[in-house]
């Protein structure tokens, strides 16, 4: 059942918000030993919000599509009176005195919070193998990672525990778990969704967005948190850029097969596939890594006198960031502008660009390398090299699951700045049979 279907059941009085919440909470508690998707489960608050949602509907107050719908927040979204740990030992007992904008908007839309989901420590990594709260596990194979950093949100949605979950994406942290878990993940245009009250990682790279069961559900959540309008768009006639360079290199056989099948489906629906050479993707990735190293270390260096309280991988990245000079950081921001202007020209030729979301399917927990022919690649790079460029460019990008016989594979579609509604409309039109 998706958000629209659950909402129809609620309004027809065939189910109540309290029943939906109880069903969701029961699933979360039952799945917790297997998947470890949550850090905090807010049973009492969920039932309180659900009762309010039922009372309002009974009085004729309907707050819209999310009214009475169970959801979860990544544990970086401030929630007054509820811990916001950021998946860290440093903030294990941190409770804010304010709510994040996203939580305020979702509460105003009548959505019902089930809890706070687990993540890679400080959202600084893609495995969600958290040394303080335990490894989060992929619902399709518990020996594999769910991706990250919004791993718990990906699991909560893909395992059917909630109808949607909020995540953050600094270098792929919404789209990678969406790809590895098999759900939809949207990184909106930079700045489109308020980050107020969301613990940062990379100040100029951070994005807030939803993970959902369907593309339409993502559009419904965006209406509530960003005021976007629901749109439709015919797939026929759309010009789809298919990169000849970079995004077609070093793919697993399953990813390559899924990507070809997705392109064929779009073409069958009337889209025009346009081979393109996209500008500077590898360099953009390097610029993104340098900016993130600098910004994350600037943010977290005040805690580095508590080294033993960090996980090894995050501590190593923070140490590396301290070694980047101010001039290198400024040059990275200068290059970013150069690359943005080059990509702006691309949108004269095409409406959207298609890529695989990740080069591989979900790796095993603890796996560090993946082989492409005779060469090995770091799992973190293989997971992020196709997603990070869109954080640097600030472009909206969505990962949509493609059914395979094995593990899930994500198809990424990106568009020009501010085209979030059109991107969602195209994604729904092209892939709704896959994502619904």
């Amino acid at each position: 059942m998706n958000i629209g279907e659950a909402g129809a059941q609620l309004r027809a009085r065939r189910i109540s918000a309290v029943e939906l919440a109880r069903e969701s909470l029961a699933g979360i508690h039952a799945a917790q030993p297997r998947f470890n998707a949550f850090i905090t489960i807010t049973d009492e608050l969920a039932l309180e919000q659900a009762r309010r949602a039922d009372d309002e509907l009974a009085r004729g107050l309907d707050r819209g599509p999310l009214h009475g719908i169970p959801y979860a927040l990544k544990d970086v979204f401030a929630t007054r009176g509820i811990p916001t740990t950021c998946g860290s030992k440093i903030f294990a007992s941190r409770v804010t005195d304010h709510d994040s904008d996203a939580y305020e908007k979702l509460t105003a839309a009548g959505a019902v919070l089930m809890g706070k989901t687990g993540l890679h420590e400080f959202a600084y990594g893609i495995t969600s193998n958290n040394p303080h709260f335990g490894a989060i596990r992929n619902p399709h194979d518990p020996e594999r990672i769910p991706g990250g950093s919004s791993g718990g949100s990906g699991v909560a949605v893909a395992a059917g525990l909630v109808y949607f979950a909020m995540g953050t994406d600094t270098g792929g942290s919404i789209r990678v778990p969406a790809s590895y878990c098999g759900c939809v993940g949207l990184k909106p245009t930079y700045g489109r969704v308020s980050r107020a009250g969301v613990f940062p990682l990379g100040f100029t790279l951070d994005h807030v967005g939803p993970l959902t069961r369907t593309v339409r559900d993502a559009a419904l959540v965006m209406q509530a948190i960003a005021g976007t309008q629901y749109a439709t768009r015919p797939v026929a006639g759309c010009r789809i850029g298919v990169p000849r360079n970079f995004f077609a290199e070093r793919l697993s056989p399953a990813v390559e097969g899924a990507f070809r099948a997705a392109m064929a489906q779009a073409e069958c629906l009337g889209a025009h596939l346009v081979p393109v050479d996209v500008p500077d993707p590898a360099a953009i990735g390097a610029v993104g890594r340098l900016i993130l190293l600098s910004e994350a270390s600037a943010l977290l260096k005040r805690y580095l006198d508590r080294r033993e309280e960090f996980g090894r991988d995050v501590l190593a990245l923070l140490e590396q960031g301290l070694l980047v000079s101010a001039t290198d950081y400024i040059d990275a921001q200068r290059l970013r502008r150069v690359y943005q202007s080059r990509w702006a020209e691309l949108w004269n030729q095409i409406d959207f660009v298609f890529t695989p979301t990740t080069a591989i399917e979900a790796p095993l927990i603890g796996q560090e390398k993946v082989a492409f022919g005779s060469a090995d690649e770091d799992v973190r790079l293989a997971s992020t090299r196709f997603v990070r460029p869109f954080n640097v460019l600030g472009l909206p990008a969505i990962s949509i699951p493609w059914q395979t016989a094995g593990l899930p594979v994500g198809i990424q579609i990106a568009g020009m700045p501010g085209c979030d509604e059109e991107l969602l409309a195209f994604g729904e039109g092209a892939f709704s049979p896959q994502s619904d």
Partner: protein
Amino acid sequence: MGDSDSSAIVEAFLKEFRGITEELSEDDFPAPVFNA
């Protein structure tokens, strides 16, 4: 990971990165993040 490991990793990465910066000119100034 010790300090020396971090230094070696960053040095290798910065060498790659600085190769990219050679295409910058005086006219390329930092964006105030985005002009989206």
